[in-house]
């Protein structure tokens, strides 16, 4: 099991120098701006995820790191050196391609050895290193096969072995698990994390699958339209998103818009509907009197009751829909104002003995620390 390393946090350490620096990088393709004035630091030995929908610019960032694109403006530094003029074959960066890009006319071991041969190392070193890689990715039996003679999962491992063979400072992974089926994907996620820790390489992964990013990454950068919306650890991204976009992109969330009114130190009252009790939230962020805001609450933090509970926040509603997911049930509760709140409850009892059913009048509640108050 990988360690959730609360000690590994070089981004919090002001003495640590980042391995990769994007400084005010802009990238334009003709009229289209793919990356807009982006600044980002990535530290050594991180497993960093670039997460976002298609077209957000994450692949462009990766290709700029690999050397297949160059920034229109700004600079990219690798280990303190500006890499703008350096062609891809001269960078200490290797990439694992989405399509794997295995050389069909070479065997598995020749594929892995390809990068090493370009460095003109002696053949002993090369064959040793290739065996090491084969062992690392459990491909020893397939060394002499050609890519079309092995399965999709095995091809993926060859691609990984090939990109790690030269022990690069930085490994870029372009949607590496997209082509795998769900079970294999899960197993491979943990394998990747294992290998990353073992080899101590810095991984930058590009993905649109937020579950994947949350599972493997030490930090996640959520991107939209060429800009980074938030960079933080998975927990922070989930529990403390900085915008409605990020809150909505990751997992499921309830967003209630309203206006804020101070009601004590870090304590705000939110007017969200005419004639209704205001909601209460604790927020370290400052909100002006009457400033419009959004309250974001995760469904698993919303409890559901038959009677009015004694809670910081309680609202009456009607059960509109129930989504049964086996281990959980998500209740879609419609409030009198028309809004729908999702409450997620573990199925601790069998379905036939469900407490609430369609059309029931129920109360939903959450504490004042459960939600996050967002300004945009």
């Amino acid at each position, binding site marked *: 099991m990988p360690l959730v390393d609360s000690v590994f946090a070089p981004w919090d350490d002001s003495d640590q120098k980042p391995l990769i620096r994007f400084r005010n990088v802009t990238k334009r393709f003709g009229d289209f701006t793919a990356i807009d004035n982006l600044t980002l630091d990535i530290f050594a030995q991180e497993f960093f995820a670039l997460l976002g929908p298609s077209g957000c610019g994450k692949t462009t960032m990766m290709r700029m790191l690999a050397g297949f694109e160059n920034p229109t403006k700004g600079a990219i530094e690798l280990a303190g050196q500006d890499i703008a003029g350096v062609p*891809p*074959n001269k960078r200490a960066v290797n*990439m694992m*391609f989405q399509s794997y*890009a295995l050389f069909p006319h070479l065997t598995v071991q020749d594929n892995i050895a*390809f*990068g090493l041969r370009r460095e003109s190392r002696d053949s002993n070193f090369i064959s040793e290193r290739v065996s090491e890689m084969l062992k690392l990715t459990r491909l020893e039996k397939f060394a002499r096969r050609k890519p079309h*003679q092995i399965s999709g*999962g095995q091809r993926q491992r060859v691609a990984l072995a090939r990109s790690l063979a030269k022990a690069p400072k930085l490994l870029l992974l372009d949607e590496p698990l997209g082509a795998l089926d769900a079970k294999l994907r899960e197993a491979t996620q943990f394998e990747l994390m294992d290998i990353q820790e073992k080899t101590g390489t810095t991984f930058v992964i590009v993905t649109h699958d937020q579950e994947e990013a949350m599972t493997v990454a030490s930090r996640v950068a959520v991107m939209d339209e060429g800009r980074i919306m938030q960079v933080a650890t998975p927990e922070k991204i989930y529990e403390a998103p900085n915008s409605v976009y990020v809150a909505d992109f990751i997992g499921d969330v309830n967003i209630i818009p309203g206006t804020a009114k101070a009601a004590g130190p870090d304590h705000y009252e939110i007017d969200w509907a005419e004639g209704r009790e205001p909601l209460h939230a604790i927020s370290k962020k400052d909100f002006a009197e009457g400033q419009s805001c959004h309250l974001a609450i995760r469904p698993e933090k919303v409890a559901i009751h038959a009677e009015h509970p004694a809670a910081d926040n309680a609202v009456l509603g009607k059960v509109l829909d129930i989504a049964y997911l086996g281990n959980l049930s998500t209740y879609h509760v419609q409030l009198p104002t028309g809004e729908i709140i999702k409450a997620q409850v573990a199925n601790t009892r069998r379905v036939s003995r469900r407490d609430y059913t369609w059309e029931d009048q129920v109360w939903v509640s959450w504490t004042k620390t459960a939600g996050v108050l967002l300004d945009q």
Partner: protein
Amino acid sequence: MTRLSLFNVVSLTFGFVFLYVPMLILVIYSFNKSKLVTVWAGFSTKWYSELLANDAFLDAAWVTVKVAVLSSSIATVLGTMAAYVLVRGGRFFGRTLFSGMIYAPLVMPEVITGLSLLLLFIGMGLDRGVLTIVLAHTTFSMCFVSVVVSSRLMTFDNSLEEAALDLGASPLEAFRLVTLPIIAPAVISGWLLAFTLSLDDLVIAAFTSGPSATTLPMKIWSSVRLGVSPEINALSTILIAMVTIGVVAASLASKQAALRAKRDEQKAARMT
């Protein structure tokens, strides 16, 4: 499994009969004892022996093969370069003209190409002979090679080249070690196409050759202008046989390779 309608079967039959009967007739009559081609006088291989004893024909055949090998080899190199430039070269000054110069020779009437090249050689003071024919054949062949190779390059997965670069290969190494081996079948068929075009060419050779260099088509031409000739029938049969064996062999080989690859993939998909 679609069954063919009667109309389609008739079309196919008629089509292939039309294409092959003339050649078949040539082959049959090459064994005709009589010199009068259309009167069957018995089976004989004498025309073959006469042909093989005919030094002029053998010399011409040798010249033709020499020219074909040289011109198709140079044309393959130039044509592959041109294809790479067209497909991967992006924008550059004079690209439209270049593209035009690649496609025009594909359809240009040979009398025009032949005439223009001869006039150029004379203007340059070049002696006409094997060299000038090779230059001429290379020029139009490279365009055919370019079309064949660029059509392959366009379906070539660019990420393979990028992967090679990413792993430390220089652009030239990436081409030599990754792209070229993979597009090799297209390059080879380009070579074969250039070889055939050169072997077969009459008009351009007539314009650009000199007293020392007579090609086989030119010899055939001088014989057939006077009508049917039994030696030519024999020669035709030999050429048809060689081409048939070559094409059928190549076709079988590629079918085998495709079958083997398919089986390998199925085997791979079944494991794990």
